[in-house]
């Protein structure tokens, strides 16, 4: 029998953990001599107070949905893909290659090609660590970290030596053709007040579709069942005839593909060219998002929204309260990972005993009443 009702596991514990993380963040702000309430207010207003703020919040959230889903899918097979950063970077490479080298007549076709290439490149970058985990038993966390650094070095090399525009000093590729620019929110949702400069673009819908896709995959398909079975118990899964190599490979390819597709939002939708370090830590935020969202697409969307708001609100914070550095967002992110991930049991253990004692009391009450 479960020690806790399901809603407590899915909603209550993550909520308590996030509140703890925010309380500690507030303490940090108070310690550096600023008002946590005012900081909170500035961040909330910056993120949700205007169409401008919403545009950035949802734009960042789009990135984090992709990377969060990537980590979440791997979590279901109990694989820790810490390489979202590198997979997204290489995904961007795929987007740039296909958009720079083919004259696409319309952005819709270009988008399909970009999806294919970003996913394929991201998946390819996850394939080697996956293979090493499946066949050689080398720890996927270590190999994906190494692949992050290799990807970063590779991207610098390619941007400086291959993609750089002749005569330009900036390590970035040429701009993509006008025809492949994704429509941004100003063109399809101007009635909501989005202006032409908003970074929010069509890729947001892609992220939502990806969420539905992951939900279907994990809970409605045979493969998803196998992935979850493998994650629960490797030995039982193998006994049931599930091929571990196949599950590890497929899960990591999907995970890498999702991380790679993040590049559509940034490279194709916003920058419209390949730039250095465009991932900006989104691969790592994905870890926090997946942990907080309990690896469920709905949770991932909510957590991604929270982090999107933190990123956008953090940028506003820097303008309004210069004493608080932008890195405060990184601190909050770290605390969310710490409390929802590493210190999960710190919240869980007392909650479990609380629910257990509540139930004992109730059962004791029921046992007594018929005897009376």
């Amino acid at each position: 029998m479960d020690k806790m009702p399901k809603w407590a596991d899915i909603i209550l514990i993550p909520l308590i953990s996030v509140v703890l993380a925010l309380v500690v963040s507030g303490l940090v702000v108070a310690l550096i001599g600023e008002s946590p309430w005012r900081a909170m207010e500035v961040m909330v207003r910056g993120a949700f107070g205007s169409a401008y703020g919403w545009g950035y919040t949802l734009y960042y959230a789009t990135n984090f949905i992709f990377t969060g889903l990537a980590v979440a899918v791997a979590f279901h097979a109990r694989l820790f893909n810490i390489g979202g950063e590198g997979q997204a970077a290489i995904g961007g490479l795929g987007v740039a290659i296909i958009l720079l080298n083919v004259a696409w007549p319309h952005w819709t076709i270009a988008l399909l090609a970009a999806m294919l290439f970003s996913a394929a490149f991201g998946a390819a970058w996850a394939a080697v660590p996956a293979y090493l985990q499946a066949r050689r038993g080398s720890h996927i966390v270590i190999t994906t970290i190494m692949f992050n650094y290799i990807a970063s070095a590779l991207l610098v090399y390619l941007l400086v030596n291959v993609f750089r525009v002749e005569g330009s000093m900036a390590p970035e590729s040429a701009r993509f053709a006008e025809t492949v620019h994704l429509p941004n929110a100003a063109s399809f949702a101007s009635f909501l007040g989005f202006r032409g400069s908003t970074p929010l673009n069509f890729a947001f819908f892609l992220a939502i579709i990806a969420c539905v896709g992951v939900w279907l995959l994990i809970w409605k398909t045979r493969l998803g069942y196998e992935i979850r079975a493998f994650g629960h118990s490797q030995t039982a899964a193998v006994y049931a005839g599930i091929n571990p190599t196949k599950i590890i490979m497929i899960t990591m390819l999907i995970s890498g593909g999702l991380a790679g597709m993040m590049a559509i939002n940034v490279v194709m939708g916003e920058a419209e060219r390949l730039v250095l370090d465009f991932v900006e830590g989104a691969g790592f935020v994905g870890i926090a998002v997946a942990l907080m969202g309990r690896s469920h697409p709905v949770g991932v969307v909510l957590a991604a929204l929270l982090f999107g708001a933190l990123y956008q609100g953090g940028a506003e914070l820097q303008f309004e309260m210069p004493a608080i550095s932008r890195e405060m967002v990184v601190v909050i992110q770290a605390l969310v990972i710490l409390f929802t991930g590493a210190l999960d049991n710190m919240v869980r253990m007392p909650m479990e005993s609380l629910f257990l004692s509540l139930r004992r009391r109730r059962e004791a009450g029921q046992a007594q009443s018929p005897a009376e």
Partner: protein
Amino acid sequence: MDFLTVLQILDSTVRLATPLLLACLAGLWSERAGIFDIGLEGKMLAAAFFSAAIAFTSGSVWIGLMAGIAASMVLAALHGAASITFRGNQLISGVAINFLAAGLTVVIAQTWFQQGGRTPQLPADSRFANIELPGAATRIRDIAQQGPLGQIYSELISGHSIIVYAALLIVPLTWWALYRTRFGLRLRAVGENPAAVDTAGVSVVGLRYAAVLICGVLCGLAGAYLATALNAGFVKDMSAGRGFIALAALIFAKWRPWYALSACLLFGFFDAVGNRFQNIQLGELVVPVQFMQALPYILVVIVLAGLVGKAIPPRAGGEPYVKER
């Protein structure tokens, strides 16, 4: 390339290998006791900031060093609490610690010094000075006049800060403690089979906390070296992935102290070569500097692929120990 140039590259190899070596030995202590630590980077960074900040405000590099070690140990204790007491995921805890250090150092530096998340430049007397061994020439012109042996002595062996010599001493010390003492035997056992250690009546929790705290001290030394010996002050993200290169070196060394020394010297050498030459010309082939930077990571993947030997981590690594009831 003349002999002195080679010596200069080797000299900077030693300098650049030192933080790697300290962090690598830190990881070795922790992982040998069964606690995976990918938070080496964060602990180094925290130590780098606090050693520089306190050395600047107090004027004493030694007080700075103590502060750096203390900061690193606080994070190590946090990792211990998460992974030993609360049986959390050690990898996730490490990730959190890296971000915590990356964020907090800049946030605190900004409020403390208002210089955009860095500490002020440290004056020479609040840094670790280079120790000139007796009889060594110091000026490059004098060194060039010496014979080969004299050049090796003056350029390569003499003229490092005390932490470099300390780090080199910690290698045999670690080896001796792990392989020649009862404490070391138990510590290694706890990383392989904690249940057996528990059965023998030795505290698994105590041993693992000890290992994690030793790891904190060594990471603290590594960070202090970065900010107060190799550089003069703290700048944002100054550990620059060294914690992960140290982790790579640890795997490359297959969790053994002497091999850790050679792995770190090798990776330090890549760094030194990459710093000195931008692109290396090998006949027709041009090796780009980015390749040199990525080489440690590529090598580790090759080792992990089992193409060169086999790297087997401590058996109980990464798993929290739950006493059977």
